[in-house]
């Protein structure tokens, strides 16, 4: 397995982790939900989830783009 695959795998794993974590967290947050509503903050968890997903998504995008360019150039140099 080469470096790029490992990096991509890691990022995908973490993204997956984040998704499940957030879904679970969403479940367990039922309890303080009433409190939050009292603060008039709407449903902030979705915003948190989206923010975290965007952050990891953009990093993912960069990693993949570097990886792709690297393997392309390594192929050219190898040949």
């Amino acid at each position, binding site marked *: 397995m080469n*470096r790029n695959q490992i990096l991509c795998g890691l990022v995908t794993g973490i993204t997956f982790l984040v998704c499940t974590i957030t879904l679970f967290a969403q479940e367990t947050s039922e309890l303080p939900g009433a409190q939050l509503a009292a603060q008039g903050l709407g449903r902030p968890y979705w915003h948190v989830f989206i923010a975290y997903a*965007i952050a990891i998504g*953009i990093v993912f995008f960069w990693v993949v783009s570097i990886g792709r360019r690297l393997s392309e150039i390594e192929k050219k140099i190898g040949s």
Partner: protein
Amino acid sequence: MSTKKILLAGTMLAMIGLVWLGVVYWMSFFWVSTEVTQGIAQRIFYVHVPAAWTSFLAFGLAALFSGMYLWLRDERLDRAAVSAAEGGMVFATIMLTTGPLWGKIAWGTYWTWEPRLTLTLLLWFIFLGYFLVRSSTENPEKGKRHAAVVAIVGALDIPFIHLSVIWFRSLHPAPVVIKPEGPTLPGDMLTTLLMSLGAFTVLFLGLFLLRYSLENLRSELDTRSRHASV
């Protein structure tokens, strides 16, 4: 240091950074306690602030390398500058997308002319110019020089932009900003924030090295094709 070693170091750092980031994600969802006034939304802060810090670090490095490139004319400095600038764009984009999501909850609107948010947006555009200039000349060396000029002017312009956007704010008072980084940041929140700062920095450094070795390989390829054609 040879390109191979840099590539290896970059891969290692990037992997450490990614795993570390995973730990930070876990911490900020399960471990850290919820902030009282802002509730759960405040957790966005653990990606927003480190992203801002990393993008400033990256843009600063890009300007520094650009200045040194104009002075010493070493191609490696230009490669480092463009790698750092790309990282800066990536993390500034994270900062600019997570900021409004937080703002929607904390302030009620997606966009406010919050000084640091505005500054980052303008920086983002300055470095957009950096990349446009770089790629739009016939003579690549000229593009590199022009881009370096953009980066330097941008860096030295930042204090002025910063002061002016703050001043503008004082002129038109906006809704009260709840400052989450107030002096009374509880211990576990501080730990999470510091962990996150570390994760983002290491991740950036690793990817920066990877990006840098990419530029190295590219120029190696260029040299090779040049020798082949002569």
